[in-house]
């Protein structure tokens, strides 16, 4: 078996030349995080006469992943939002030198004594849902409110003009489907044509879009405090309604459209988002981003299935969405779109 612990110990020594007695008490892989190999590490060292023990998270690029992204996007997002008080882990090291662990990786603090709700659990939050729900939508509003230039992210991500956001996003995800589909997708293709025929208004502002803000991508503790918003690997600059519609996608709420993310009522969730983002939710624009996000989802699930089928990554977590999530998004799209097409005729 690969000696990640030994090699990572050497890396920590390299990053902390003044430290001694560096030891890894445990290193274990965490399930999920399909776009990166994620390991929980318990490390200890002695420095300036005092002993330190710290939990770390190591996120290493996989050979092949569900989402092909650059790891510095995610690292930079943590670096930008951590000082602002948004609950994200403290980023520690970003490493692109392949000599350490064969693939690029980054290291961040471990958020301990927390759990993530599974999007595939019918009731992931139980009695904590109201408390977590208020924070979930508030934090998303806070992300949307930030000026990407002011927090140093505009220079690290491709800028896009408000009127061009939708075209850029549709083109990107259509290209993924073009490249990775293993069978024709009549529903996704009809949806892409609809998106192009019915463009949304220009974005109200250019925001940092997390890209995968949803159930399963944040950690909460037993008191119901959200302690960390994770998985920023798809973050980009764009329309803040993209994040809102993705977070409210019925896939993340076991199909419950009225209680998005399985948390609180839709109306209250969106009221909180508006209050903390300072932005409005144009119904037609929101509908467009709902349809777009289902297409984006399909592109991701199709791509994951292809990676699994090709043997590039045999993690079961890549096969599952290709079956289940594709089915959910296909049905959502075909029902919603046929309504919209019919409404446009009347």
């Amino acid at each position, binding site marked *: 078996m690969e000696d990640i612990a030994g090699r990572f110990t050497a890396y920590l020594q390299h990053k902390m030349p003044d430290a001694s007695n560096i030891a890894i008490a445990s290193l*274990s*892989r*965490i*399930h*999920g995080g399909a776009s990166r190999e994620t390991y*929980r590490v318990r490390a200890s060292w002695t420095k300036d006469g005092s002993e330190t023990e710290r939990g770390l998270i190591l996120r290493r690029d996989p050979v092949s992943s569900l989402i092909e992204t650059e790891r510095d996007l995610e690292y930079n997002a943590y670096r930008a939002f951590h000082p602002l008080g948004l609950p994200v882990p403290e980023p520690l090291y970003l490493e692109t030198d392949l000599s350490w662990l064969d693939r690029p990786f980054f290291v961040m603090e471990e958020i301990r004594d927390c759990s993530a709700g599974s999007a*595939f*659990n*019918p009731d992931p939050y139980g009695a904590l849902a109201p408390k977590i729900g208020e924070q979930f939508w508030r934090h998303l509003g806070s992300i949307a409110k930030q000026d990407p230039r002011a927090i140093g992210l505009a220079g690290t991500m491709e800028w896009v003009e408000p009127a061009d956001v939708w075209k850029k996003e549709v083109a990107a995800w259509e290209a993924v489907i073009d490249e990775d589909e293993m*069978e*024709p*997708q*009549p*529903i996704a*293709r*009809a949806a892409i*044509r609809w998106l192009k025929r019915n463009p949304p208004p220009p974005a109200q502002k250019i925001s940092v879009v997390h890209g995968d803000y949803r159930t399963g991508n944040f950690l909460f503790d037993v008191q119901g405090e959200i302690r960390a918003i994770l998985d920023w690997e798809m973050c980009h600059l764009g329309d803040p309604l993209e994040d809102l519609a993705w977070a409210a996608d019925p896939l993340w709420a*076991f199909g419950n459209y009225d209680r998005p993310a399985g948390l609180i009522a839709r109306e209250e969730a969106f009221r909180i988002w508006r209050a903390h983002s300072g932005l409005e939710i144009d119904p037609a624009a929101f509908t467009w981003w709902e349809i777009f996000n289902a297409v984006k989802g399909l592109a991701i699930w199709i791509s994951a299935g292809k990676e699994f089928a090709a043997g590039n990554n045999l*993690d*079961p*977590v890549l*096969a*599952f969405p290709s*079956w*289940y999530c594709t*089915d959910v998004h*296909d*049905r959502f799209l*075909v*029902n919603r*779109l*046929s309504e919209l*097409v*019919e409404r446009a*005729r009347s």
Partner: protein
Amino acid sequence: MTPHVTNVMQTFFGTLMAQIAPALGSEYLIGSTSVIAMMMSMAGTEYERGAEVRVMENREMRTLFAAAAPGIGDSALSRRLEEASGGEDTSLRISDLDRTNAALKQLLIELHSHVEELEGPDATDLDRRIWAFMRNAAERRKLPHPLAAA
């Protein structure tokens, strides 16, 4: 083949989730085992209905093409619709049905795209029939989530 495949898959789903996964020490292996268990349950569902949903889809698309072909002004597309409408599924192997299904769906995409550019009541009617087909087909392929069903 007894016990029936669907029954075996559902039982293994329960065993993996309730007995085997909790006994594994590794968080990663517990997660992976749970995902494998859910997919076994879904495979059991697909084993039972797989041939039927594909045969129905293929038949419905051929019927749709037969109705559409005479009214399609693009003569090449019309001819291909006519040809496809005359096919039949001579093998019930899933791989063969999938191959035919993919070819028919590719033609459906072309037809739908073409129809969306047309105007008039015939085009509207055909567009509605295509949407109805896609709705029904997606509903028939719905995968019951094993945790929701449990």
